[in-house]
């Protein structure tokens, strides 16, 4: 399988750079997988898991807390709000995120904010279910 360039950056640091075969991205409108010569796309991401397939059997899974994914002819760039490798992600972190989301929902004053908070809470719950923690 052909490789392409992939970069994962968070505001604090550059987490990953190199050639990979495929990356699964949790887009806000649905998951998609980027492979070589993917059509240029720019999308926002929901909290979820980025699945990086390096070469052959090597793979890396990271939790991202939303952000942007940018697919161009040069490759894929993910600008994550926050990214944590899955093996370093603790159940408490997820629980804390869910609690935050619940509080946001309770605090939301406008219809718009409420819908946004609800969406976020659903996404986090979904994530917890997927992780099985």
């Amino acid at each position: 399988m052909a490789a392409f360039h992939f970069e994962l950056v968070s505001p604090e640091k550059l987490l990953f750079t190199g050639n990979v075969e495929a990356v699964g991205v949790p887009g806000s409108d649905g998951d998609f997988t980027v492979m070589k010569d993917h059509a240029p796309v720019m999308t926002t991401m929901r909290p979820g898991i980025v699945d990086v397939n390096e070469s052959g059997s090597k793979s890396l899974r990271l939790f991202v807390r939303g952000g942007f994914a940018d697919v161009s002819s040069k490759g894929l760039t993910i600008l994550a709000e926050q990214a944590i490798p899955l093996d370093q992600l603790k159940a408490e972190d997820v629980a804390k995120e869910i609690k935050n989301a619940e509080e946001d929902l309770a605090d939301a004053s406008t219809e718009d904010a409420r819908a946004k908070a609800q969406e976020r809470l659903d996404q986090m719950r979904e994530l917890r279910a997927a992780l099985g923690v």
Partner: protein
Amino acid sequence: MASLKDLRTRISSVKATQKITKAMQMVAAAKLRRAQSAAEAARPYSERMGAVLANVAGGMKGGGPALLAGNGKDQVHLLVVCTAERGLCGAFNSSIVRLARERINALQAQGKTVKILCVGKKGWDQLRRQYSSQIIDLIDLRAVRQLAFTDADIIAKKIIALFEAGEFDVATLFFSRFRSVIAQIPTAQQLIPAQIEGGAATASAYEYEPGEDEILATLLPRNISVQVFRALLENAASEQGARMSSMDNATRNAGEMIKKQTIVYNRTRQAQITKELIEIISGAEAL
């Protein structure tokens, strides 16, 4: 003529000061290393962010949202002045303030209204003497040990909220860019309307998910947070660099002072011994 005792206390007090400046220099050097690596680690994100933004904005038809294109006016200017929380770092704070002050005076000469948002106490101290009525707020980062993105996010949210409330038309960020330990460059950077680095890139045939407007609506506030974050990190590195070199100077000056004072002390002591000897000899001769 100072007595021997006076000279001794003077020397020991300079020695004590030298110890303090030496310690501060070493602390600053250690902190500088950390601040520098943090600033370097944050660079890729802001670079990619700029590239992505240029890409999206390049493909935009028409003006785009207010954060990008401005609200069509430039009457009220907001200056976000980022300085340190502590002094004793050479001309670091005053050079940022000087740049801001020049801008304020230039803007006021043009008849514009100026509002100031201070980040860091030292800049506020210096600016409030002259422009206390124009300062709208002071953001204190004293409690922050390790600068995190959330700190910048809070400041950016505040700026955006002010913009949306129509409090100002143009926002400019003042901070010090870190070049090296001896060179920090005070810089002014326009935040709102967003400045696209490298001009409008060639619009590639992008697909946007969800839509172009929605992406820009999340991307632009994010970009402001990133810019503020970068400014704060650069500032932190510059501050430590400035402190390190100014404390190095202070230590060296103290060393010179000790050397001079020691010579004076030795001379005085010798003069006194000679005087005593003469007294004894002339006393013996008189017998």
